């Protein structure tokens, strides 16, 4: 934000020193740069800030701490149900198994017990990886059949000590994790983005055989409902 100010004196001195035409040319370049800079700022800084609204998770959960205590890693709380579905974010009933009373003097835990456990209110967790309604994602197929680790899509979530804010796209209502945190869509890790192309990329790498007549790739119904 400091740049325009520092360049201001030089640009002000230009009209006096040069001729009419040069000055005009300089002004044009100047305005071009101004427009360029302003739009780049809008596009890279203001737009992402405006596009997403930020929400805090209802309870600040420490994955790392829990991971140390539980016996079965992620599957201790995120497990497959008998109906073949995946439990996703745990229900209050699971939390209560350990947290009927606060186990520590951590103020966040005490607040969790007071606000949710005691009144029996489900925690409205904001799911970073929530896909839109048209998507059918089978955890069973990926984890059980494909043997893929949770972190491949969810990143090192299990090592986090605190929950990062949840950002929601104001236009689509999607979680920011779907597009990825890099506004340019650049991805460094497999979990950085969760769009259809990312699914397709991985399916292609894993040579999931395609049954589609139209695309020679996967059939559409493999991932859609």
């Amino acid at each position, binding site marked *: 934000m400091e740049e325009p100010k520092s360049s201001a004196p030089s640009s002000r001195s230009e009209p006096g020193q040069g001729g009419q035409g040069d000055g005009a040319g300089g002004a044009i370049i100047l305005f071009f740069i101004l427009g360029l800079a302003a739009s780049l700022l809008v596009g890279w800084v203001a737009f992402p800030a405006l596009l997403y609204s930020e929400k805090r998770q209802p309870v600040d959960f420490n994955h790392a701490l829990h991971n140390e205590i539980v016996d079965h890693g992620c599957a201790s709380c995120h497990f*497959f149900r*008998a*109906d*073949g*579905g995946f439990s996703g974010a745990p229900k209050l009933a699971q939390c209560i198994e350990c947290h009927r009373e606060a186990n520590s003097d951590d103020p966040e835990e005490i607040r969790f017990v007071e606000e949710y456990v005691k009144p029996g209110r489900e925690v409205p967790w904001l799911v970073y990886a929530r896909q*839109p*309604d*048209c998507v*059918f994602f*089978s955890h*069973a*197929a990926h984890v*059980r*059949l*494909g043997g893929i680790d949770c972190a491949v899509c969810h990143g090192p979530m299990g090592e986090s000590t605190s929950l990062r804010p949840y950002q929601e796209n104001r236009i689509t209502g999607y979680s920011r994790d779907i597009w990825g945190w890099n506004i340019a869509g650049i991805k460094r890790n497999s979990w950085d983005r969760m769009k259809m192309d990312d699914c397709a990329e991985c399916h292609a790498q*894993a*040579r*999931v*055989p395609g*049954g*589609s*007549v*139209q*695309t020679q790739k996967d*059939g*559409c*119904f*493999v991932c*859609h*409902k």
Partner: protein
Amino acid sequence: MDQPKNKRYGMVIDLDKCTGCGACMVACMAENNIPFRDDDTDKLLSVSWMHVYRLSNGKPFPQAEECFLPRPCQHCEGEHGHSPCVSVCPATATDYDMHTGIVSQIYTRCFGCRYCMAACPYHVRQFNWWDPVWPEGMERALNPDVSVRMRGVVEKCSFCYSRYQTALNRAYVEGRRELAEEEYQTACAQACPAGAIVFGDLNNPRHRVHRIVQPDLAHGGRPRNPKAFRLLERLGTHPKVYYLTGRDWVRRAGDNEVQKS
């Protein structure tokens, strides 16, 4: 990654057993979140994946006969999966899956040009002219396994693909890759109180649907059972929905030639 042997899911409907009660239609509506409107009596505009048609032999009283023909999507295989609708879709919103033989429809991909509706010889596709609206509270009965369709897109029967997805999920969790015949059944086949609808894998000689139809898979699945026929066989669309009847006029009606006789 190895893939289990290709399936060719299909259906056989015994028209001599079907009573036209409509349980298949209602079961389908409940399973697949079919919307309803104040006036659904114009059946050309009414969205219904499964529709029971009433056929008449055209003879005068008292020789008049009627037959009821439930019509889901025929899931045509065409030549190498080029079913009439799949070939024309400009949006790749509908597709033929060689692994299952099911013609898919992706609503978020569809932009509503309705070319597929024009191409389909069986009227199985319907356009959502209106936003789906449920009266207050009734949206609670919506099934989360099937997307609710918006205004402006085409939809059709999916052979209850979501039931295939959930059945597979259960199998994967139990460490299996193959489904037993009864694990994946469409809502209509399951509901039919007359036992007229049989659903299964036409490629699997143990499945009832294969045993009944005895499909000649080298020739587009033509039925070897003399009582079995497909709608508009002469078009070469190779549907995977077969019909059984012992009545000649019904069979002829199935090829739309009832007027000629």
